[in-house]
């Protein structure tokens, strides 16, 4: 596989420029005509700690991280704490090299900064190198950078060395550096890049290296984009001009992108005292007639339960995004998990009336961000976009044309003053904002400041004018009408293509997944079919209202279904069974909750061990099989 794809991993400490260097290199690979996909691994630490980013590049489609990787660029961790006997974190200085060896494929390449890393500190390093046929290139990257510029430019030296070893021309990298760097640091960086490149070409026989850069060509202009970018752009294109939030990893990315762009668009961003306020501000802005959003990650979203319920009861359009990370409580702040699914579906008191969408890819993140706003405003209901640290942070190339769409700033069923005059009012002039019998359950609204539109929005149960009411007849009429909206939304969603299928339609087995695991599952399904296993997959995005009929048809069409998700308790499988209880004995689970997203091979091996060979766990992986109920 080494000749088909490059999986380049750059490792170092937090604060060492790993993210920006890898982003630029991914873009250079994309511009060279390849498809790229990144995977970030970083600790919840300001400086230092074991950090890496992986770039997978191939001429064919890449929608997932790979199985392991084949090229390591190990830089020093400038913020590593001094090694001392008994230190809790061990010797941090050597980690950029030592922590990354387990996943390096046979025949892989190691470039390490010999100015900072000493492999003699790693037990059995030489034996492992020989055993795995690794090609090792110790280079004094720091020294080179220091001599020609500054020490921090050693990342550039590492990229230059990489290009020399994988046979990649420097032009795309140089173009990017010219775009991104100010004059003052550009010249030394270019010099360092070229010197490192030449030095490697001169000193080593690079023909021995099995890992090379693939070649490819794009038919149209590509963009390198993350899920967080896509969510923010979707919101902007749907006319969202107000955001309120409080920082929390990983939701902060969307909040930051919106905050940096909104002033340019005449919008408003508010960083506020807590997440209760953040969601309440979004409710207030929406009530006053602006398209508004807020969001958070698990712990912050918990604080939003109250305003979320208020938006449900007052039928205030609202979009919240929830960027999942590993829980419970503070959990693992920088690690992905999908275990906030039930939290988001069910939090807040009473019978919930909300929409929850879980996009699976960067493209879907853009589309479903827009869809979330459309549904929220057309149906006057809070809509939650549920994603995770993986989808939010991973970068991939997307055709530019994907974003060439018209904006949609419409507010939904909102009345002009002329239309308001035609609507039912009480004798005292109060507008009947919450009428009982209306099509789809959606009753048109007025905006404060409009003549003839005054009403009371209240979290109490209320009559058509908004007046607080505990009348049984009114209660039933209002609950039924609000519930009716979910049926209308389900019918609406049935006309929108949010699900993703892979594999032959007449396959024997099925894999169900949701959200960010979709790309990995689809790659695994492809490999299983190549290996002669007849299997197809369905990636579901609509969590609520659930596409019961569609999922039922999928389950009906196969013998057995493996549900793949990043939770420990099988929450998504639980959701499927809540809606399709009678299929319980056809559903088993493959779970992963160690803080790292699935690799395709883990799904392949997990599927083979559990379904093809019988009920069991695949060896060598930190995944868990949970058999079907009754098994």
């Amino acid at each position, binding site marked *: 596989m080494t000749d088909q794809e490059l999986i380049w991993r750059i490792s170092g400490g937090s604060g060492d420029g790993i993210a920006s260097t890898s982003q630029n290199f991914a873009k250079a690979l994309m511009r060279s005509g390849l498809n790229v996909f990144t995977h970030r691994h970083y600790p919840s630490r300001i400086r230092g700690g074991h950090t890496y980013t992986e770039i997978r590049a191939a001429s064919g489609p890449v929608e997932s991280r790979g199985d392991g990787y084949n090229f390591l660029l190990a830089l020093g961790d400038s913020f590593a704490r001094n090694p001392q006997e008994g230190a809790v974190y061990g010797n941090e200085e050597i980690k950029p090299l030592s922590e990354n060896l387990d996943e390096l494929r046979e025949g892989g390449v190691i470039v390490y900064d010999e100015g900072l890393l000493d492999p003699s500190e790693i037990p059995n390093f030489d034996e492992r190198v020989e055993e795995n046929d690794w090609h090792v290139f110790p280079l004094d990257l720091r020294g080179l950078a220091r001599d020609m510029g500054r020490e921090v430019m050693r990342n550039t030296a590492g990229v230059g060395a990489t290009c020399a070893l994988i046979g990649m021309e420097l032009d795309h990298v140089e173009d990017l550096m010219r775009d991104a760097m100010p004059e003052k640091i550009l010249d030394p960086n270019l010099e360092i890049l070229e010197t490192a490149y030449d030095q490697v070409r001169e000193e080593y026989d690079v023909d021995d290296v099995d890992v090379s850069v693939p070649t490819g060509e794009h038919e149209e202009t590509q*963009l*390198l984009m993350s899920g967080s*970018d896509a969510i923010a*752009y979707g919101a*902007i*294109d749907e006319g969202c*001009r107000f955001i309120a939030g409080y920082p929390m990893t990983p939701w902060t990315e969307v909040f930051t992108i919106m905050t940096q*762009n909104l*002033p340019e668009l005449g*919008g*408003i*961003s508010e960083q*506020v*005292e807590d997440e*209760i*306020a953040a969601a*309440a*501000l*979004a*409710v*207030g*802005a929406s*009530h*006053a*007639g*602006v*398209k*508004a959003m807020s969001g958070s990650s698990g712990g912050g979203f918990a604080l939003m339960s*109250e305003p979320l319920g*208020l938006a449900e009861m*007052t039928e205030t359009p609202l979009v919240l995004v929830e960027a999942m990370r590993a829980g419970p409580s503070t959990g693992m702040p920088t690690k992905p998990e999908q275990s906030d699914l039930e939290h988001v579906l069910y939090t807040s008191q009473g019978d919930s009336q909300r929409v929850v969408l879980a996009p699976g890819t960067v493209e879907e993140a853009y589309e479903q961000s827009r869809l979330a706003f459309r549904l929220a405003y057309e149906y006057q209901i809070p809509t939650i976009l549920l994603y995770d640290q993986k989808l939010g942070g991973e970068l991939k190339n997307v055709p*530019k044309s994907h*974003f*060439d*769409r018209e*904006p949609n*700033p419409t*507010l939904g069923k909102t009345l*002009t*003053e*002329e239309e308001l005059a035609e609507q039912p009012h*009480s004798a*005292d*002039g*109060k507008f009947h904002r919450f009428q009982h019998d209306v099509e789809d359950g959606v009753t048109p609204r007025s*905006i*404060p*400041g*409009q*003549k003839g*539109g*005054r*009403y*009371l*929005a*209240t*979290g109490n149960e209320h009559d058509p*004018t908004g*007046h*607080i009411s505990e009348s049984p007849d009114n209660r039933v009429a209002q609950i039924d009408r609000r519930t009716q909206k979910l049926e209308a939304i389900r019918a609406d969603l049935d006309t929108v293509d949010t699900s993703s299928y892979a594999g032959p339609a007449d396959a024997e087995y099925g894999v169900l997944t949701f959200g960010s695991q979709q790309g990995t599952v689809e790659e695994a399904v492809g490999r299983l079919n190549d290996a002669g296993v007849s299997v197809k997959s369905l990636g579901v995005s609509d969590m609520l209202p659930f596409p019961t009929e569609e999922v039922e048809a999928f389950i009906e069409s196969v013998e057995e279904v493996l549900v793949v998700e990043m939770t420990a308790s099988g929450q998504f499988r639980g959701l499927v069974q809540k809606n399709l209880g009678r299929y319980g004995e056809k559903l088993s689970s493959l779970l992963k909750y160690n803080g790292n997203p699935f690799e395709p091979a883990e799904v392949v091996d997990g599927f083979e061990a559990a379904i093809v060979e019988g009920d069991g766990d695949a060896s060598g992986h930190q995944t868990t099989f949970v058999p079907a109920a009754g098994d």
Partner: protein
Amino acid sequence: MSTFSAIGEEREIDRDEYTPGVEPQPTWCPGCGDFSVLKALKQALPEVGRTPEETLLCTGIGCSGKLNSYLDTYGFHTIHGRSLPVARAAKLANPDLEVIAAGGDGDGYGIGGNHFIHTARENHDMTYIVFNNEIFGLTKGQTSPTSPKGHKSKTQPHGSAKEPLKPLSMSLNAGASYVARTAAVNPNQAKEILIEAIEHDGFAHVDFLTQCPTWNKDARQYVPYIDVNDSDDYDFDRTDRVEAAEMMRTTEEALYDGEVLTGRFYVDEDRPSYGQEKRQIGEMPEEPLAERYWDDDYEWERSYDRFIDKHE
């Protein structure tokens, strides 16, 4: 017809316009101080020329939250403690609205205390009325953040061991630019203070002493009261932060010694409101954002044209 033609309309306003047809008679207990807040608002709003449909009243939960049912304007009866974040966002979305928030002492100084501090700090151009009866009324008489030390209730059977919260001092320190206290028993002063508070360009906090004859029988009826701005016994400059702070402290301590001091304690007419500050740094549009969604000529920008190229 413009989008929001109720806004800025010049006409005579009858105070009966604020009385709803449904439930015109409030359900507060006889003798409750809350009636005075309602009456003072009905008097103040016509005087400042704000009609029911250009006014947004946001309330919390409690006896005070019922104000929305008895004052007929655009209303948002929110959740316990959260009237301020809803209200201030509405003001940012449409600065032409007259935004008033109201809640009780438990609502504003207890569960919503964080929002109170930050809304005052930011100096949003709005009025915040706190019905301060030193008790939780709607839940039947539990000790509140402003209950005096030693106050006995079903939830504090041995008497509260806590010092009461000092709302005026807290407000000043947090950054409110208008801080006043009035009392239900003083309707003329209440009306005048509400007029000033509504007209003030910044966060105007009115601590409104509202006696609770049902659950706080020990409490004074807040008589006799003294207006510190008119009394010869008190001499301080309400525009001076240090003097205001001292007067507030005196007032807050005096209340628990049986002396009811009211009036304007701090007024800063020079501090820009939050909206002005935000416009100043280019983070808020000059025209109300809420208007834009109705402007057929507005060209909505696409991410494709504005932000996408840097991803190439």
